[in-house]
């Protein structure tokens, strides 16, 4: 562990390589270009492979190609780039390939703007591809959490044989923060991970075993319904094990601000402002946004809590839909959101919370 001051993009890149990532492909798009730039400098020294794809489409398929051989692989992009990757993300889910995908969100719909947003909530949690496939979606609230999430994402990807999605944003990519960077796993561990994949499921040397086939869909031995039932069992397993959230000053809370990812930092600052003024306000922060932490909202004491303010950097608001489903009408849910690179501001959130509390 070492304390370093790093830019978000570079921290994610460094963490990935320390977590054993030995293949990265990507295509330039603001605001995450420092990821491929950083990895292109360091990956060759680790004996790994960096490739700049001719498009996001090619890049995600390169990831698919590295993953079928059992190489730890990661791809990063931003919003519209993820839209282009959508088809192959479905293939990765269906073919059960353990890769890590990170999205540094910019504006949308369309090319939007390069400003930071949280405009891809539905895309990340509900519809990253056709066919209704799901994957674990992490939403770190700080660069330290982003680094830890990268390590965890590779582990979970391996555990569930699934792509894992890290939902970041333009602020997290561009901002610098002091972080503790974990030590790298050893070359031996990296080799052992690949070897294990080769033994269990990856394609390569066929000696001493039957042929394997990998396809993002029904294969010659597995009808689609059977495959989808198998995948669903995995989603249910994740829903059981991977719920992750934070309660902040919730014990005596009469009002709740709820936010996730980068938005939660401004929400936390707003809670602090309001607490200093004597308001009993707490925060619920989903850390994984799929599976969504419904239990956090079930645990609210609705005899005490009189209102919930959901805040995010997306117009129209998207995260609020899951909040409403979770709250089930037990308290009124209010919205305050920004978009188009307009960054949430703690003072503004506090103002909206005071409105709610009137």
């Amino acid at each position: 562990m070492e304390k370093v001051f790093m830019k978000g993009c570079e921290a994610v890149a460094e963490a990935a390589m320390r977590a054993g990532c030995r293949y990265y492909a990507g295509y330039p798009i603001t605001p995450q270009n420092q990821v491929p730039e950083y990895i292109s400098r360091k990956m060759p020294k680790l004996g790994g492979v960096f490739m700049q794809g001719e498009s996001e489409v090619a890049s995600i398929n390169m990831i698919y190609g590295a993953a079928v051989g059992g190489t730890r692989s990661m791809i990063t992009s931003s919003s519209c780039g993820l839209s282009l990757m959508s088809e192959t993300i479905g293939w990765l889910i269906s073919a059960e390939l353990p890769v890590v995908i990170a999205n540094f969100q910019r504006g949308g719909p369309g090319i939007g703007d390069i400003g930071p947003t949280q405009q891809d909530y539905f895309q990340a949690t509900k519809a990253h591809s056709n066919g209704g496939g799901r994957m674990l979606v992490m939403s770190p609230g700080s660069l330290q959490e982003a680094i830890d999430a990268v390590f965890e994402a590779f582990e979970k990807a391996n555990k569930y044989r699934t792509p894992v999605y890290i939902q970041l944003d333009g602020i997290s990519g561009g901002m610098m923060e002091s972080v503790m960077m974990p030590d790298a796993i050893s070359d031996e561990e990296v080799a052992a991970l690949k070897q294990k994949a080769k033994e269990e499921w990856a394609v390569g040397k066929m000696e001493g075993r039957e042929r394997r086939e990998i396809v993002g869909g029904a294969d010659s031995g597995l009808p689609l319904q059977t495959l989808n039932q198998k995948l669903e069992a995995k989603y249910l397993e994740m829903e059981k094990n991977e719920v992750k959230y934070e309660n902040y000053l919730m014990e005596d809370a009469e009002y709740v601000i709820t936010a996730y990812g980068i938005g939660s930092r401004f929400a936390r600052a707003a809670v602090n402002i309001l607490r200093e003024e004597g308001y009993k306000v707490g925060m619920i922060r989903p850390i994984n946004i799929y599976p969504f932490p419904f239990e956090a909202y079930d645990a609210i004491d609705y005899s005490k809590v009189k209102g919930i303010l959901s805040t995010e950097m997306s117009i129209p608001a998207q995260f609020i839909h899951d909040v409403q489903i979770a709250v089930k009408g037990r308290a009124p849910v209010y919205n305050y959101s920004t978009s188009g690179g307009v960054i949430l501001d703690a003072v503004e959130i506090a103002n909206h919370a005071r409105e709610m509390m009137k």
Partner: protein
Amino acid sequence: MEKTIIMTGIGGQGVKLAGEILCYAACKVDGLQATNYALYGRAKRGGMSDCFVAISDKTITAPVFAKADIVVAFTTETPENPANKLREDTILFMNTPNDVKAEDYGANKFVLFDGQGMADEVQNPKGENMVILGILVGYTNILPEELVLETIFEKLGARHPEFNELNEKAYRYGLEKGKAMLAAE
């Protein structure tokens, strides 16, 4: 204790670099954390350039903020009026050769200086942002002064060790001026 700083200027003035040096220096202090986020206009040079710095002994909450404890205006010509970034207790550092007044910005605490003029005086015309860093550190004592200088050497001297001497002169000149202004209050 969380300290927030907004450095505001126009592209090419070294606003971002000054903010980064403060953060790198803060990280050298045990127990301190820092965040830094730069916002630019579309133009690489001459466009808006705001740099948000937060330094704290706890995990930093918001890395971007509309108003801050300290606002450092690298010029009076910023696209957005720095007055918008001030709270009642904000210290506004204003770098300009012109005779502007605290009242022009509604600032209750106001530190006026001519960074370019000072940089010229120490024969380092490109060292304006070093002067500004010096004044900020000298006046607020936000970080140990020698630690900031050490960081300047590290971050700028790595590629251009030949500028270390000039940068030190500009920084120390700012530092003394900052301390003197504080003492004069």
